[in-house]
């Protein structure tokens, strides 16, 4: 039996290549295939070398299995490092490009400004209404039941809460910007 037949028919070789499939399954196909091809070649070469040296097949199987077992921790570490690096690259390239970051910042600022304006209008409107009419508007209202005291109070509370929230966000952003300068 030659080295090619030995490595192809070897249960040890099959087990090692299955193990390679397992620890490279989260990696890109090319990286996984490279590692598998490299191991396939290494195992073949060891069988070929052993055949030339007249070593018994059983001891070659044992030696190859031992090499694989001793490297299990390194295999897992290598795979984890590759996977982590790939995930980090994907995150930085696909999600947080400078253009996307700028757009997100602009959208957040616009939303914040709209909320501030709405809250101020709601707050001043409801306070004015409370002072002028006691929260009750008579005559033309947008819908039946609108502009009664309950609704005015709700508008007042929601507007005050929104204004407090936007103020807190604005203050946090300002402090963060100051600390990074």
């Amino acid at each position, binding site marked *: 039996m030659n080295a090619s037949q030995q490595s192809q028919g070897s249960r040890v070789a099959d087990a090692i290549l299955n193990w390679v499939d397992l620890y490279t399954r989260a990696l890109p196909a090319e990286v996984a295939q490279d590692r598998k091809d*490299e191991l396939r*070649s290494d195992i073949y070469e*060891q069988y070929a070398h052993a055949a030339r040296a007249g070593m018994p097949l059983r001891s070659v199987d044992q030696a190859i299995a031992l090499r694989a077992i001793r490297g299990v921790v390194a295999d897992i570490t290598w795979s984890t490092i590759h996977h982590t690096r790939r995930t980090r690259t994907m995150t930085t390239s696909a999600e947080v490009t400078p253009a996307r970051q700028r757009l997100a910042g602009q959208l957040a600022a616009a939303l914040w400004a709209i909320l501030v304006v709405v809250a101020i209008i709601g707050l001043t409107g409801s306070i004015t209404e409370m002072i002028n009419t006691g929260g009750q508007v008579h005559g033309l209202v947008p819908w039946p039941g609108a502009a009664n005291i309950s609704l005015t109070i709700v508008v007042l509370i929601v507007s005050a809460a929104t204004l407090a929230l936007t103020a807190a966000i604005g203050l946090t952003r300002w402090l963060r910007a100051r600390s990074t300068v």
Partner: protein
Amino acid sequence: MGRRKQGSLLPLEVNILEVANDAGSKDELLYGFALARALSTNDGKSLASHGTLYKALGRLSEAGFLEAEWEDPASAETEHRPRRRFYRITANGKTALIAARAGAPSQARNQSFRPVRA
């Protein structure tokens, strides 16, 4: 196991560069199993484990200290064996090896272990 200093080479990596440098000077092609045999201190009876060897080779290649190239599949087929992946020491690898021999990891640190873009 403690965390290694950034840019420093492990003894195994220095040995790999030594073997690769030696092979390069003799114009020999170096591949995984041949390297494992060359690294063995007891005539190939105890070879470097697969995981340790190929992890170290990967790191050295990413650092630009080694160049890896797959063998032409046709020539491997002619010999009825799987194709080999050949490793060659680079100029940066030689510099890092000289620095490691002199016990100066800072030279290697300058080369850094950051992946090299192809």
